[in-house]
């Protein structure tokens, strides 16, 4: 997957992490996550919502500390693969400015059985959201606002 801004970590074809300014290709993710030894694939797709707790949202902007994001993503992916014995793990986060309905993040996992797939996928997205240094700004009718996010604890 080409990008003006991307970091990709591939280890034994099991783990892929990408930060990109380009639109995320979900069909490619589904194709890449498949594995003949995996009976289950779990996919989380995060899209830009048209509202927040205060009102309408017209667009969002994501900004990343790319060097640290790559390190923490690698750690999260290793934790997830090791804990649930995954076949593959893919996480892609889009940065830059884009609109409502567009996909900002994808986490995909494949495993032998569905229990591991569901749990690993949730673990992956929860930890990416809370630990990876990527910040979000929402554009609303009343102005722009940065949304509080990460804890930066490794």
């Amino acid at each position: 997957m080409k990008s003006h801004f991307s970091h990709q970590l591939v280890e034994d074809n099991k783990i892929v992490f990408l930060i990109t300014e380009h639109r995320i290709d979900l069909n490619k993710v589904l194709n890449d996550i498949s594995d003949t030894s995996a009976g289950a694939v779990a996919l989380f797709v995060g899209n830009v919502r048209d509202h927040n707790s205060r009102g309408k949202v017209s667009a969002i902007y994501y900004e990343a500390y790319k060097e640290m994001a790559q390190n923490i993503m690698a750690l999260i992916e290793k934790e997830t693969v090791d804990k649930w014995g995954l076949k593959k793990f893919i996480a892609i986060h889009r940065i830059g400015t884009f609109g409502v309905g567009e996909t900002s993040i994808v986490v995909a996992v494949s495993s032998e059985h569905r229990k591991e797939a569901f749990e690993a996928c949730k673990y992956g997205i929860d930890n990416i959201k809370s630990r990876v240094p990527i910040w979000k700004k929402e554009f609303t009718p009343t102005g722009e606002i940065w949304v509080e996010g990460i804890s930066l604890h490794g």
Partner: protein
Amino acid sequence: MSDDKNNHNYALITVRLFANLREMVGKSEIKLQVGNTITVGYLRKKIYEVYPLLRSANIPFVVAINLKGCLG
């Protein structure tokens, strides 16, 4: 942050800023002269001295040093 210069008493460090901090300061990177051994609290205080607007804005921020998150 990175340690750019060391002598007996101080170090010149690079502080990278992101998101709302970057916007308020107007730069993505600043240089600060600090002691050789500092705490997160001291760093925060030093930043506030140079950019008092950040103190009054009372923005919560997180600190990472050499790509590792810090408490405090």
